[in-house]
């Protein structure tokens, strides 16, 4: 197409004619507008803005023009290419945006579908309830004491003011190791831990003792031969039964809600004197069900109180056997069953659910109670 630039006379070069340039722009703009995908737009770009596009070819002709015409044609072609670039850019952006939006729509999934690839685990509620109780007492300045489950009779009974022929031993049905004379039992309560603690620590002693305990009860809805207790022991100067009551009230309201208090009833335990049975104000009806047949309470059987545990002031005989001077120190102890606490706190109706290990029981309790 090009001719030798042998003359200064303007040479009419068709592609550089304003009409041609305008036509190229119009064609390009139209093609750009009709491109519906980025791929189509890419083809349009090649055709109308590529190296072989009409305007690119026209551009090459400029060099052959006389100097005056060169500038004019250069401006014209440059402006035309700029328009096309702008149109391409605009269309490109719009198509990208459309594509991005379409992709997001196309990638839509059913988020209601399950994703239970990894089944959930859980800790046993007896474990976590025990921890919760323990944490409460740690906050009150206690430490956790533990002891063996296979225990010497001396710790389980003798040191707790239950000499060998004591009737209390008839009442606690004890598993004996090997023979009834072996001096070794499965501990029937966590109280031997109290003795162990007093023998190894000097007052002030503030300990909470959780653990597994054993009695020869057949498993049924309300009994299990293997159960857990948590006991508290405080030995210090000037400790009174009012301190016991205050501690239990704080315990009750922290575990069961503001205003839930405790009631002490005189009772007998060998290792405490005075001793008391411990009742918890029903945290469901708060006593409103008593003598009120219209509003019966299942949690407390409309008694208004729930039997919770036992407590008392540590018997001086136990202090003496544990090497603590009862003239200088006094103390209190309390204990309750964790199974029972779980039963009424969480509405467990059958003791067997807690011991059988059915995962359907445990999983809903998750990591904490």
């Amino acid at each position: 197409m090009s001719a030798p630039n042998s003359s200064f006379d303007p040479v009419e070069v068709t592609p550089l004619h304003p009409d041609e340039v305008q036509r190229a722009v119009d064609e390009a703009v139209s093609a750009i507008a009709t491109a519906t995908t980025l791929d189509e737009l890419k083809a349009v770009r090649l055709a109308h803005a590529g190296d072989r596009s009409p305007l690119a070819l026209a551009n090459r002709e400029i060099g052959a023009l006389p100097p005056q015409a060169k500038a004019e044609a250069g401006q014209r072609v440059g402006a035309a290419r700029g328009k096309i670039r702008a149109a391409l850019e605009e269309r490109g952006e719009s198509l990208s945006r459309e594509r991005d939006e379409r992709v997001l729509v196309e990638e839509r999934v059913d988020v209601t579908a399950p994703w239970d690839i990894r089944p959930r685990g859980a800790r046993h509620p007896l474990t976590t309830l025990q921890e919760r109780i323990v944490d409460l007492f740690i906050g009150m300045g206690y430490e956790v004491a533990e002891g063996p489950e296979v225990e010497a009779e001396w710790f389980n009974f003798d040191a707790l003011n239950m000499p060998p022929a004591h009737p209390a031993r008839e009442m606690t049905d004890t598993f004996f190791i090997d023979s009834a004379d072996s001096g070794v039992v499965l501990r029937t309560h966590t109280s031997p831990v109290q003795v162990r603690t007093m023998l190894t620590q000097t007052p002030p002693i503030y300990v909470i003792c959780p653990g597994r305990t054993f009695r020869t009860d057949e498993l049924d809805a309300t009994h299990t031969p293997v159960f857990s207790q948590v006991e508290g022991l405080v030995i210090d100067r000037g400790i009174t039964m009012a301190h016991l009551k205050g501690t239990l009230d704080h315990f009750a309201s922290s575990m069961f809600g503001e205003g839930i208090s405790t009631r002490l009833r005189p009772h007998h335990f060998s290792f405490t004197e005075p001793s008391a049975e411990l009742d918890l104000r029903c945290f469901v009806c708060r006593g409103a069900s008593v003598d009120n047949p219209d509003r019966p309470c299942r949690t407390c059987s409309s008694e208004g109180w729930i039997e919770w545990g036992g407590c008392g002031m540590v018997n001086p005989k136990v202090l003496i056997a544990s090497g603590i001077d009862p003239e200088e120190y006094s103390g209190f102890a309390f204990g309750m069953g964790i199974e029972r606490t779980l039963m009424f706190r969480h509405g467990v109706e059958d003791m067997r659910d807690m011991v059988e290990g059915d995962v359907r029981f445990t999983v809903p309790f998750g990591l904490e109670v």
Partner: protein
Amino acid sequence: MRVPMSWLSELVALPPEVGAREVAERLIAVGLEVETVDHVGAELAGSLVLGRVLTFVEEEHSNGKTVRWCRVDVGEHNEGGTDGVPDGRGIVCGAHNFAEGDLVVVALPGAVLPGGFEISARKTYGHVSDGMICSPSELGVGDDHDGIWVLPESAGLPGQDAVAALALRDDVLDIAVTPDRGYALSMRGVARECAAAFAVPFVDPVSAPDPEDASSWPVDVSDEVACDRFVLRSVSGFDPSSRSPLWMQQRLRLAGMRPISLAVDITNYVMLETGQPLHAYDRTRLTGPIVVRRAEAGEKLRTLDDVVREMDNDDLLITDGSGPIGIAGVMGGASTEIDGSSTDIVIEAAHFDPPTIARSARRHKLLSEASRRFARGVDSAVQESAAERAIVLLAVLGGALIDPGRTVVAGPRLTHVIDFDPQAVSKMIGLAFIDSDVVGYLEQIGCTISSGQGGRVLVSVPSWRPDLDVSADLVEEVARLHGYQHIPSELPPSPVSSGLTLAQRLRRRVGRVLAGSGYVEVQSYPFLSPRVHDAMGLPHDDSRRRALILANPLSDEEPELRTTLLPGLFATMRRNVGRGADHLALFEMGLVYRPGPGELHPHPPRPVVDRRPTAEELAAVASLLPHQPQRVAVVLAGERERSGWWGKGRPATWGDAIEAARRVADACGVSLTVVTDEHAPWHPGRCAALWVDDVLVGHAGELHPKVVAEFALPDRAAAMELDLDLLAPTDEVRTEAPRFSTYPVAKEDLALVVDADVRSADVAAALRRGGGSLVESVRLFDVYSGEQLGDGKRSLAFALRLRAPDHTLTPDEVAVVRADAVAEAERDTGATLRT
């Protein structure tokens, strides 16, 4: 102790408006545990009348049963007789323990008996039975099913209301008596508490009898510690056919005892009233003086329940010239027992050492009404009065003549005196008491008080309160009578706590980590059958076979205590599978019991308790106990990652078990070394021993197929068990902050061909070692075996990440590290680079 309100009201001047419910509440408030208030006879309704059996005809029926067709005179309720049949009503009765002329209880049509059982005239055995002749149990009194209730003549006249005549309605308090309150096993003791609770007068049914000059029957007490009081009194000419009055029968029944015969009923009645168990001998069957002594081992006695029992030399015996005639305080012998012909009766009222009786009762498994009282402590001053009360009743009700003379063998009565500071109550209870109130409360329970030194008082404890021993016991008496509800509520001074110990924190962490990894915690019983050791395939000399044995297991099948957590987990897994669970991951944490090889102690050490035990004594006690390590174990089966709409899941494998162990170790801040092992109950080719440094802490892997079959577990179940005590560091491990390079990483993948038995961990270790400090990590990402490698070869593909702390690695440096790593792997494991 069952306490009829009608009886209690005779001994306590209760205000008339006070009912059983209020009495129960007050007694509970002072510490007597009233478990129930039984409204005996409350359900009785309609016409219950006395009736006299006029005639009866015995008829045998086709079902083999013989019934009596009776005419019964029921007074004003009679219907006119016709056709030569006498007046009264026709009633069919199945019992045979009555005669014509006997007085009985008749429920007329319309009457309602306990259980809502309504009586109507009904046709039976070919007659219209116009009512029912009742047994005591049908009337709700006692559990006597042996026949109908034949009443004494004194009961009343035909037609009279039976409920009133027989006192069939009464409220009964059922009190669970704690071991310290033996005195509450008597009407007298409960009445005294009740009087104190209501602050009303108490009528003591016991009074000291007149002295007697002579003795009754000769007695020799050879053990005055075990038997400090022994009283005998006797009667002659007792009419053995005389019957207990209705009021006595009814009180015995309400108290839960069965009327037997007048003489026996009197001994029981006096026991209920005074708390003093009595024994009645037929005097004609006694030979020579009564001797109270310890048994000789091997001596035998036929007790009155007709069982021949062999004595232990700790048993206290009552003997006469013929040998043993009773186990003191527990049960009498058959040879001297009174029976339906006895006319001359010797009554024994004794006081025994409580532990001696408790041991005998337990040894012979004879927990009688008497032994229950003696074991808890009987009033040591009531023997003469109780014996007197019994013989007076025998005389009045049974026509006996009281023999002169009373045998009393008694040591000096030592009144226990407690030197007591009345302010001890305020100090212990946290509530201010004035001394006079303290003294007042103590006097209410029968103490006598005299002043001591420096504001203290001397408290003489009454004979019926052997439980009052030290100051604290008196504090409790004052506190309970004053009322526990008055104790203020205040918190003790708050100490400082160092919180949980490291071991306690680690246990929580382990539990959370396993639960977070999808394991569900279980708590199994530690009781095992010895058969599980075989089922687990344990070698014969495996230490896990050495288990503690319970002397009294709940089930004879499971007498052992666990030495490993695995069988309990297996059983729980099987239970869950049986209930339809397919994919399970369970864990348990708890103690196992590992007895040492030592001998059992024939005489276990039992330090005294009136002082702190010595270090030697404590060591001796400690030596009784087995090692009780804290363990954690998991078992898993089914899919570890579930199949679902996303595709196929991943089955639980040996690898998951080992990974669980690693997670536990991580939680404890230690790292595990995994070593190939063969160890039951694991699959011999899929079992890892787990080490921390040079300590074996547990095992993990897939279970042996035989074990899976024996325990009926899902196929390919895997498990691990770790000893947490060994695993957990004794001291806190403080993690040092890592220092790491921010220069670019160089990634090198390489595949090595090794013999199939070369362990990947060894190859990885060699690569790391060979590569040196520039190796950041080595990770096995593919394992391949196939024909092109040849038999017995595996290809292990590793991804190495290399990085320098201070510059970007050059290609040359990377090439050197790679070559060094491969060279070490070749040298150490025989690996060849796969090209």
